[in-house]
């Protein structure tokens, strides 16, 4: 449903990265990890379309949920200026989420940049499992939610592109290294295309369960306009499914990158 939701908290987490907490009993109760909301950043014709943003966490008791966004263009810039007690026009929760792990499983999440946010929600909702987070950031000053990830993971491994914090290089490096020693039951990934592609390929090659959360430019956000196409296998052929409705989460082995 489309609703005007009240902002109960905003916080700048790093340069150009903001957390927003919204009041919504419905979303707080019904959202599952991997789902997103579709936001109208302002009334009127500016930033005309809605912007899809992942749900970071929900608080069913307070009736609130959080999302974190990075300022990229016009829409997210407008969002970054909103304050407590302002209202945001949201549709959601939308899309299909992750398959939750079962008790006792070994879970690895691999996230890069803005791709880490839906993975946080997944970790928070996965209980009685062993959890490792591989998180890739551009540089030390773009690291966000480190403490939060540490709270919901057994181990957090951080990489930066420029080596200013943690391991220097891409997250795929420590991921591969650890794979030499142990095998997870489930891998979940979200982030830049080259990263999710190599994680998916590595998992498929080794027969490891892997789910990928995809991004695509959207129109309606509910499956009607067919613009958010994602190429998936279909027998010997392929088909375009739709990120907003069939995804954003897809099984790795179905995707054609």
């Amino acid at each position, binding site marked *: 449903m489309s609703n005007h939701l009240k902002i109960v908290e905003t916080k700048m987490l790093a340069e150009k990265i903001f957390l927003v907490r919204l009041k919504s009993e419905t979303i707080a109760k019904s959202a599952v990890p991997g789902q997103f909301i579709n936001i109208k950043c302002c009334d009127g014709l500016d930033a*005309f379309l809605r912007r899809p943003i992942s749900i970071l966490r929900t608080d069913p008791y307070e009736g609130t949920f959080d999302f974190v966004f990075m300022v990229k263009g016009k829409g997210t810039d407008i969002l970054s200026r909103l304050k407590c007690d302002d209202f945001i026009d949201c549709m959601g929760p939308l899309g299909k989420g992750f398959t939750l792990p079962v008790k006792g499983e070994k879970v690895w999440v691999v996230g890069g940049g803005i791709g880490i946010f839906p993975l946080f929600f997944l970790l928070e909702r996965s209980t009685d499992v062993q959890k490792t987070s591989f998180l890739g950031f551009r540089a030390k000053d773009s690291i966000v939610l480190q403490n939060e990830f540490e709270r919901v993971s057994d181990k957090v491994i951080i990489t930066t592109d420029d080596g200013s914090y943690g391991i220097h290089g891409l997250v795929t490096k420590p991921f591969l290294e650890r794979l030499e020693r142990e095998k997870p039951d489930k891998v979940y990934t979200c982030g830049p295309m080259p990263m999710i592609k190599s994680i998916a390929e590595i998992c498929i090659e080794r027969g490891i369960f892997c789910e990928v959360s995809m991004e695509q430019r959207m129109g309606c*956000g509910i499956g*009607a*306009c*067919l*613009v958010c196409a994602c190429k998936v296998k279909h027998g010997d052929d392929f088909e*375009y499914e739709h990120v907003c409705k069939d995804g954003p989460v897809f099984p790795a082995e179905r995707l054609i990158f």
Partner: protein
Amino acid sequence: MDLSVNIAGLRLKNPVIAASGTFGFGREYSEYFDLNKLGGISVKGLTLEPRKGNPPPRIAETPAGILNSVGLQNPGVHAFIEHEIPFIRKYDTAIIANVAANSVEEYCTMVEILSDADIDAIELNVSCPNVKQGCLLFGSTAQGILQVTSAVRKVCKKPLIVKLTPNVTDITEMAKAAEDAGADCVSLINTLLGMAIDIDSKKPVLANITGGLSGPAVKPVAVRMVYQVANSVKIPVIGMGGICNADDAIEFLLAGAQAIMVGTAGFVNPNVWVEVKEGIELYMENHGFRSVQEINEALIV
């Protein structure tokens, strides 16, 4: 006060129709509002065989509008008849089948098939800018429209609407050709061919390079074209292009459109169709109009 309109045998309980390609087959939006409130639904453009559509990205946001290059992704006419008509029929709203094809023969085959299906009208899409062959080629010349429409007319047992492209020098010529060939109605406008470039990557935003412009940005062009066409043919006109609210819709009705379609605006506001319908009702009440036809005749120039 009577909101119903009768367009060459197509009876609509109100003049608000969901525009083709923006509304799927109604399933998704049925979770957002009561489809019984719609005058009709023009379904996603159908082809004889299923079509995969174009690679993504298929959408670019532009000032007050969007470019799309979906490329007629659809399950094919047979799947439509089998799976989608029964769904839409649960609602009291007209079903308009939007038809695209690559050749005159294919248009005729599809219209023959659809003439025996449980639908209320056929909208010939001779104006899709996002497929390589056929379609737009027919719609870009009066000769092409004449050729397709007259062939289809012979096999069509439903009210026949021809959907016009704005990407022509003189749209009234196209409308006249459709009328001469026996169309019952024309609908306009389809999208305006456009392009957007990402200056950082230096690549076109759309994988297809070009796409069709829709949304509020096109509205003044659309109103002008509807006005011109309504004044040059006798058959009814369905107007669309950038309608976001009742005021926009009423402009089209004043310009001479007997009914209107709304598409892109629904991406932002899933309740737009209901709001437009209710707003038209309120306007009629406030201005003392008893029928939509009275609005059509009210423009002062």
